[in-house]
């Protein structure tokens, strides 16, 4: 070191500028810490199984952020709106009403004796959870470019927080569904507990699609434009407004390759029909959904590295 007189450094700071409250901060600096310093090696990104594990490790460290961000998503969404949380119920109820009118007055579909409003609402809830999570996640990742260019935290937290917020809406919808079930005197059996694995697979698949599409959307904004159309078409390829029974038997194997189709049919079976889920179809949905999730997560993590540069 060349001459660095302490007098120079200290006399440059004028007395008036030193603010009294810095004492409060001083307490927060703990000198001489004993914990082990984590070692992190930064390398060029690679698409591999390793990225999944290191990614999940980092994600676990930031789990508080995922929780806080999800909570604030809900808070912000209904801020300055007069109806507030009612909006979470209005969307499925409105769709239920319109589909009930179309599919009982204009044309009819076989529901196996289940009242149509209940039949369609039961499928609309998981579908709306799935589709709105994806839609919000894709747009949400690019909504605040500053978050990507000025801060570091695992980027998947942004799409996943929209998923968590969508899940809260889904729970509100389920409460309404329970009301409808009581109204129509459709009582659940113990098989209703199968809802838990079904919803877990559903959330896993929604996460897979949300991660994949939101990562591509950073690069190609076509995704954001294509997604509403895709989701609209997708809804009619799965048993939401109609039942799986309406699909010709020879197409069913192919049909159930779409995890969502099997999941929604199973959701309806365990809730409204009181039956067990179709094990083959649930296992197939789970296998495809989690395989997609692993691939989508690895892809997301490998493209995360350049998101800040291309957004």
């Amino acid at each position: 070191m060349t001459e660095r007189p302490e007098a120079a450094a200290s006399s440059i700071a004028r007395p008036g500028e030193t603010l009294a409250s810095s004492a409060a901060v001083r307490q927060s600096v703990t000198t001489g810490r004993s914990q082990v310093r984590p070692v992190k090696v930064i390398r060029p990104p690679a698409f591999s199984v390793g990225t999944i594990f290191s990614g999940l490790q980092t994600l676990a460290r930031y789990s508080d952020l995922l929780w806080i961000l999800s909570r604030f998503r809900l808070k912000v969404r209904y801020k300055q709106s007069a109806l507030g949380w009612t909006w979470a119920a209005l969307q499925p109820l409105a769709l239920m009403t319109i589909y009930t009118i179309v599919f009982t007055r204009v044309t009819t579909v076989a529901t196996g004796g289940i009242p149509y409003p209940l039949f369609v609402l039961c499928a609309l809830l998981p579908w709306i959870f799935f589709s709105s999570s994806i839609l919000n996640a894709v747009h949400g990742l690019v909504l605040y470019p500053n978050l990507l260019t000025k801060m570091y935290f695992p980027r998947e937290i942004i799409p996943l927080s929209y998923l968590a917020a969508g899940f809260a809406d889904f729970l509100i919808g389920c409460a309404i569904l329970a009301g409808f079930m009581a109204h129509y005197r459709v009582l659940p059996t113990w098989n209703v507990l199968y809802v838990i694995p079904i919803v877990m697979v559903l959330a896993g698949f929604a996460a897979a699609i949300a991660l994949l599409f939101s990562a591509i959307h950073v690069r190609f904004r076509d995704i954001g434009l294509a997604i509403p159309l895709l989701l609209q078409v997708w809804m009619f390829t799965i048993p939401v407004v109609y039942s799986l029974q309406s699909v010709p038997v020879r197409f069913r194997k192919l049909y159930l390759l779409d995890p969502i189709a099997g999941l929604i049919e199973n959701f309806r079976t365990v809730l409204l029909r009181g039956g067990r889920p179709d094990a083959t179809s649930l296992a197939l949905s789970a296998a495809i959904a989690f395989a997609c999730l692993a691939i989508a997560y690895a892809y997301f993590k490998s493209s995360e590295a350049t998101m800040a540069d291309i957004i």
Partner: protein
Amino acid sequence: MWALSDISFQVEQGEALGIVGHNGAGKTTILRILSGITTPTRGEITVRGRLAALVEVGSGFHPELTGRENIDLNGAMLGMRSSEIRRKLDSIVEFSGVGQYIDVPVKRYSSGMYVRLGFSIAAHLDPDILLLDEVLAVGDAAFQAKCLDRIAELRRAGRTIVFISHDLAAVYRLCDRALLLDHGRVVADGPPRQIIDEYQQMTFSNDAGPVGLAEPESLAQCTSISFSAPDSTDGIRTGHPMVARLGYRTRQTIPAVVFRISFYWPSGYLCAQLTTDSSQGGLKLGSGEGRVEFHCPVLPVVPGLYRVDLSIESNGQEIEARQRCATLNVGPGKFVAGDFYIENSWKLVEGASPEEKSFH
């Protein structure tokens, strides 16, 4: 085209490293790679310890959320756990001075409050390694001083700091070592004073008009600035003479001209100013080149590095202004304690002196 290439350097634990260089030299890219915002195309970086990066104060704020909620959110984004944020909440609020507005959505904050809250959160990070990018460029002078205080405190606590700034005085004051970057390469690595000198030489040799950018339409331009010590070869020192030479060029005859050289403390406060006389209505300049020489028989400012702004006024209107275009590096000379050296002579008088007032 590489933003950075063939860069290799080490920062020791407890060291404060400054990185200086022109816009586009790759300073921010280094910081982005270190913090994980982006990754290198090639090469490897090893980071030992918890690292936090502050690229922009308050950039993770959500306008709809209240100050308190944004503390939770921003703290978590910067890598704090919820329990840590809760523990430090009171201290963060107090330091920010936002006080009673803490439960108001930040979209209703003034920009000053916004920045103060943002920095306050970051100031309570307790990482092993802290990366700072131009955080001192925002906020008022008091805020900048607060930032500097806090950074100095972290240094005393043995934290490692990587500091990127155009404010050379701040780099000089805070850092033990500096890197000079040019076109994505490290061109110099050494003590801050030496690196700052090299950076300034580079600035002056790179440009045809040596001081920053020039607007061709302006009536007058500052073309050079230099400081020299006429009586010594050790450079400029406190209590010794100094000569400042300000070169200019004009396109036409300009009436009522006043030249100013302003010296700023690292904190951003104006420290002193040299100006040509305006009492007679200013100078009348012919067109062409010329220079103004200020002769200061005794330089009263304390040792340190001062930021220099230049300006030319005509009829009370600023027609040319160059901010942060140079620095004045004052070495230790005559003894000084306090803010200024006072030129004086003294003598000892013994015995009672009835005509002078006594202290009691």
